[in-house]
């Protein structure tokens, strides 16, 4: 029986990327009943919110979604569709695994790190004021509840996936109250997982450690802002946002997405790299209980990249569709 999955085709190059994933999934005989839901620019142009309530309700009902990149309209009052989805679906755990891929040449060999980013609070509560004509204030909200659930999610993931180490990342030397709460919560929860090596690092030092001693790290967990920055740093180490996948988990709901933008200037040019959306899709297959399909598709992807078939961002000449066909051929062969 086919799994039902909500699909947001996205804006700009989003639909081309979704088409590429569909080709590959068909070649792998992945049985999915896609339920298309609307979000993005066409909703705004129709006078609707960028993520309509009906879309939120449907994703919550079905419980899983795949989202291609969307464009955040520029202008006063515009809101990020990505943040809207995470907040309204309470997708509190943003998981960004990064690893070396064959054929994707970076200085960071044997890379394999999973980053857990808290997705719903911190400065992303977006509570801001001009408190005088020349003074702005932004409120950083850190709750024990928010810290506990992201930290516990990281340790549970480590335990379930045979990961050996979790590092809590913070800036509690400066923000002794807010980040101090995160650190105290981390130290309390790590004691419940004695088989997992756990310690903490200050975020600036952690960034330096990532680019100099990345092989020493297995999993990182942190608050929202640090996670936003560090996960993009890690994506760069993997080869860029064109290859790095993303997953967002909540209670009974998960949304998988390529975290790069919609690249509107490349719309219709059949040019952009579908790897990030494809790997987000394989994370989704794992979540749906199809690990064998994940392994098959990722194996085909790695074989394709290893043969030198790559899109422009990786120095190659393959189009979006020819790259997808190459991966599909590996699966059919």
């Amino acid at each position, binding site marked *: 029986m086919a799994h039902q999955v909500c699909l947001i085709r996205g804006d700009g190059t989003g639909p081309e990327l979704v088409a590429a994933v569909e080709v590959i999934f068909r070649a792998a005989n992945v049985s999915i009943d896609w339920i298309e839901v609307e979000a993005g620019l066409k909703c705004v142009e129709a006078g609707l919110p960028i993520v309509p*309530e009906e879309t*939120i309700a449907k994703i*919550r009902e079905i419980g899983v979604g795949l989202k291609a990149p969307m464009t955040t309209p520029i202008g006063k*009052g515009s*809101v990020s569709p990505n*943040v*809207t989805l995470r*907040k*309204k*679906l*309470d997708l509190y755990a943003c998981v960004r695994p990064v690893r070396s891929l064959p054929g994707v040449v970076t200085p960071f060999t044997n890379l394999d790190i999973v980053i857990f980013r808290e997705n*719903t*609070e911190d400065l*992303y*509560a*977006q*509570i*801001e*004021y*001009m*408190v*005088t*004509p020349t003074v702005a*204030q932004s409120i950083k*909200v850190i*709750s024990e*509840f*928010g810290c506990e659930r992201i930290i516990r999610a990281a340790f549970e993931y480590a335990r379930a996936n045979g990961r050996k180490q979790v590092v809590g990342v913070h800036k509690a030397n400066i923000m002794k109250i807010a980040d101090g709460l995160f650190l105290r919560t981390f130290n309390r929860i790590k004691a419940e997982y004695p088989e997992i090596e756990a310690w903490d690092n200050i975020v600036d030092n952690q960034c330096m450690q990532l680019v100099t001693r990345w092989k020493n790290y297995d999993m990182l967990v942190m608050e929202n802002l640090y996670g936003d920055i560090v996960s993009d740093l890690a994506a760069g180490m993997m080869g860029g946002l064109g290859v790095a996948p993303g997953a967002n988990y909540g209670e009974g709901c998960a949304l998988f997405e390529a975290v790069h933008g919609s690249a509107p200037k490349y719309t219709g040019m059949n040019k952009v790299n579908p790897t990030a959306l494809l790997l987000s899709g394989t994370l989704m297959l794992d979540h749906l209980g199809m690990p064998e399909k994940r392994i098959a598709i990722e194996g085909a992807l790695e074989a394709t990249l290893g043969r030198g078939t790559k899109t422009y961002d990786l120095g190659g000449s393959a189009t979006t569709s020819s790259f997808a066909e190459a991966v599909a051929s590996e699966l059919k062969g």
Partner: protein
Amino acid sequence: MTLHGVDVYLWTPETPQLPITIGKFTLTLISNRGTRVWPPPAPDIKLLDWPRCRYVSDEVVTNEEVESLVAELTAAGWTWTKLQKLFREDGVNLYSEPY
């Protein structure tokens, strides 16, 4: 920069049932961790015991009117932990909106 309202942060476990109008002020939204939870529909999210309740007036208000609003909430039994005045300049709100 003119004064038009106040965000009142309450310490309470659930989304509070508050008066819609107090004096010149109208309750326009309640949010929790930056996500709008009132007016409905409220998203199905876990709530902190710290809702932000926004009272706004289109007219310019005074410090005393803000203090009177807060005193009325206190007299009704609500515990506030933080207040933030809401200003406008040239018709533009100098404060952010929740998701």
